[in-house]
């Protein structure tokens, strides 16, 4: 069985993982949500059509998204040091996780907003709504189920990404699995890490699904 020290390490790893995922997810949402909305409303034929903004912002988002995460972590070490004051440890790991999360969230939000029926925007325009009112009163509430589903997807991806930040001493469950389970040949630690991660992802996914269902009023039974 697992020794008490290993159990302690598992708990600490879980807390570190939750910490990294929660903080990078929250900041990533703060940055990604408005970018996603802007990407959606500046597209061709949309509310605030703006090709220049759309193309430039789209390119920035794609650049980050097409860089493999492990490369991104190493490549932005100077930036990480600038923001976190260090390039090692859990706090430092939050920087690349956020940099990866924000564009991901931007794309899922963009998709959710684009899914909103064009007719609703037209109806709001006919009522004399300003573009900002349309975003706040129509697009965001109507896209909410899709946004919640997208954020859940992002959180699950972040849990996966967080396993890689061990490369910069980020800590967390993934790091524990690599250092103890793989490098020290402790298969039971590896198994325990995998089980905790599976349970964690299940909880995140189920909670996300539950919230998405709650906020979705589209398929109510009469």
């Amino acid at each position, binding site marked *: 069985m697992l020794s008490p020290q290993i159990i302690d390490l598992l708990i600490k790893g879980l807390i570190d993982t939750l910490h990294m995922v929660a903080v990078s997810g929250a900041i990533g949402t703060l940055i990604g949500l408005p970018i996603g909305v802007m990407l959606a409303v500046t597209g061709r034929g949309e509310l605030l059509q703006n090709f220049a903004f759309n193309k430039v912002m789209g390119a920035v988002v794609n650049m980050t998204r097409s860089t493999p995460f492990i490369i991104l972590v190493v490549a932005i070490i100077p930036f990480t040091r600038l923001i976190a004051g260090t390039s090692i440890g859990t706090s430092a790991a939050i920087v690349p996780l956020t940099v990866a999360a924000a564009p991901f969230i931007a794309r899922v939000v963009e998709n959710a907003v684009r899914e909103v*029926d064009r007719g609703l925007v*037209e*109806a709001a*325009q*006919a*009522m*004399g709504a300003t573009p900002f009112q349309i975003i706040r009163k129509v697009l965001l*509430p109507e896209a909410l189920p899709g946004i919640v589903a997208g954020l859940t997807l992002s959180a699950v991806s972040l849990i996966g990404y967080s396993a890689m930040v061990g490369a910069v001493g980020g800590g967390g469950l993934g790091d524990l699995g690599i250092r103890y389970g793989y490098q020290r040949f402790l298969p039971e630690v590896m198994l325990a890490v995998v089980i905790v991660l599976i349970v964690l992802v299940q909880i995140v996914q189920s909670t996300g699904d539950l919230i998405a269902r709650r906020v979705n009023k*589209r398929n*109510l039974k009469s």
Partner: protein
Amino acid sequence: MITLTNIRKTYAARGGGAPVHALADIDLTIGRGEVFGIIGRSGAGKSTLLRTVNLLESPSSGSVTVDGVEMTTLSAAELRQARHSIGMIFQHFNLLSSRTVFDNVALPLELAGMAKAEIGRTVEPLLDLVGLADKRNRYPAELSGGQKQRVGIARALASKPKVLLSDEATSALDPETTTQILHLLGDINRRLGLTIVLITHEIAVIKEICHKVAVMEGGLVIEQGPVFDIFAHPRHPTTRSFVDPVINRGIPDSLRDRLSPQPGLGSNPVLRITFTGEKATTPVISAISRQLNLDLNIWHGQIDEIQGAPFGTLVVEALGDTAKVDAAIALVKENNLGVEVLGHALPANH
């Protein structure tokens, strides 16, 4: 109330082809309190035309005035203000799925910055008006199509508009629900004096509630006027193709076979008498037979109601000599009824 002058809408074709004229030189005047119908097949440009009224489509050239305000030169903020007095309802309702019935109707008021208590006072009577007071906390997904359109109507009326634009509002509904929604619109028109502009591809909608109608084809208005006149005397073939299925102006095929354009041996003239409006009740047939001693053999009769006014046609074979028939035609005309000689009926084969 609404004047469209010389409206054109031209789209540049993709790939450098000839530009597409969605609307060409449209002139329409819609009076206050009128229910004005625009009918056409899909692609005729009626939807584009309707959207020029609240400038959801801005015309390439021409002028749009609503209640004395020239819409095409307004700033973005002024246009939003002007749109508060133009309600709009849609074929697919366009209700927010995330809002309850009450909150959907409240939306335009929230957008206009009305205080919460006042919103409540405005929305409640509207829900009563459309008969949905008991559904106020339901979501659109829980409603039938007709109920959704009632919400759409209440929402369009919330900002107390002077004009209501209806974009195929009944096209997604079954016939019975369509009738109910049209009655509601007619009722609103009468009670609130609201000017309604509706587009449809269903002539039955025009017949049911419109006072005036414009027929569109290929981006042009090909015919317009009071509904009664257009139904009684459609001039353009397209108009006729719309009107014929609901107003039987013709005669049955079996009778048409006996008609000849020229008089023949033993033939009798066949007349079509049209009764319009209150004259539909004139007892002209019995007057002819009494005063002129002329027998009329009734071939075919039909009476319809357009806009609550009766419209009838009667096809008769006049069994008498030319002098009597001419006198009969004169008598019909004296009574201000329409009459035309359709042809001459040859004696049936023996």
